């Protein structure tokens, strides 16, 4: 166990959002440029979903909203979807995850898996509705939206991503928001 002085831990912690955005950028580049070599099933991976679920569960409201805005904006710029679709879609995912966190805080492997299952299922209903509201011409109630293979892949990758984000928080001395709300650091 590494023991650091409070100000050292605070400095490292302040880099957490930058690391998070950096990680997202790396994954974004991998996701959009490996279509030549990656199996085509990976094109169905909703990359930002686990980030939003994680921030909804573990970040203070202001910080979570700030990360949502930056990442959802970056995401929007990588797609031909009407501007606003992903901003609203991921805001709704963030809000749902936050509301769930009031009653259920996912901390263990199984609870995270359960949370991801619920959110991935909901996301496949929320996204077509939001896209439909933007008149994107999407098939709202197409069974393709709820393909079991795509759902399973997103649940498993989302679960792994959620655990990975937890590791980054540990390495950067970032605690869950309950602890931060009480004003206690974990350094």
């Amino acid at each position, binding site marked *: 166990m590494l023991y650091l002085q409070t100000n050292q831990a605070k400095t490292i912690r302040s880099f957490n959002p930058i690391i998070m955005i950096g990680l997202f950028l790396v994954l*974004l580049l991998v*996701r*959009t*440029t490996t*279509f*030549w070599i990656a199996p*085509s099933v990976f*094109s*169905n*991976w*909703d*990359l930002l979903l686990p980030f939003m679920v994680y921030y909804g569960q573990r970040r203070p409201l202001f910080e979570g909203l700030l990360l949502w805005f930056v990442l959802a904006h970056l*995401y929007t710029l*990588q*797609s*031909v*979807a*009407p501007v606003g679709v*992903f901003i609203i879609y991921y805001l709704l995912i963030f809000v749902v995850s936050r509301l769930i966190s009031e009653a259920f805080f996912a901390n263990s492997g199984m609870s995270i898996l359960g949370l991801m299952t619920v959110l991935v299922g909901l996301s496949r209903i929320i*996204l*077509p509705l939001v*896209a439909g509201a933007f008149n*994107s*011409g*999407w*098939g709202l109630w*197409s069974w*393709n*939206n709820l*393909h079991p293979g795509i759902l399973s892949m997103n649940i498993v990758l989302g679960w792994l991503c959620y655990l990975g984000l937890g590791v980054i928080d540990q390495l950067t001395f970032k605690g869950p928001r309950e602890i931060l709300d009480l004003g206690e650091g974990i350094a």
Partner: protein
Amino acid sequence: MWVTGHLQQNTGFFTQGLRKLANHYVFLVETAKRNELLEKEIDEAKQKLIQLQEVESTNRRWASLLEFKNSLSVKTVPGQVIAHDISSDFIGIRIDRGRKDGVAVGMGVVHPAGVVGTVYRVTDEFADVLTLADPASNIDAVIQRSRARGIISGESKSLHCKLKYMDRLEDVSQDDAVVSTSFGGVFPSGLLIGYVSEISSTSNGILQNISVKTAVDIYRIEEVLVVISSNQPSKNNT
């Protein structure tokens, strides 16, 4: 001499045998090393061969694109696909050509295999293309055989498109070629869009439901041409 001669003869046979033994068994270490070296060289040669095949494939694609470009009567700018849409629910591609190359929003994007889509968003160096397979895309099209006119639009999570607004009395058959029109000056007329794959109509409807299989595989194209409108000349029409 007779004695020594025979002895020498046999000794020679014996030493030859020893030499053979040494070459085939004792000095096998050297052979093994040589073998490893040769295997390594073969691997490198195979790798080079694959690289050369890739270069050849790229050359062939560019040659085909150049031939296609020369066959078009409009100015075009070649571009390379550098990324795909981050969401599988929207079907777009990003190319390495932008405003400084004369690309503007709404311009058509084509490939030797057929129509790809239209420019959706553009920066100085890059452009996002809304492909014809995206549900938000709407491209004017005609059935090549009967000249029946409709609008091609994408379907979510599928490379099949719909040919919309086609009256039920119009003459459309399975495998009919669907081609572009010059309406709006976005595409040259007669470029292949796809082939009719399915036709259905409801008993009380006035329209036909027509599914079209796109000629271009959006997920496999690597190079495209952006059609520069006649009133917007390209700065880099190479």
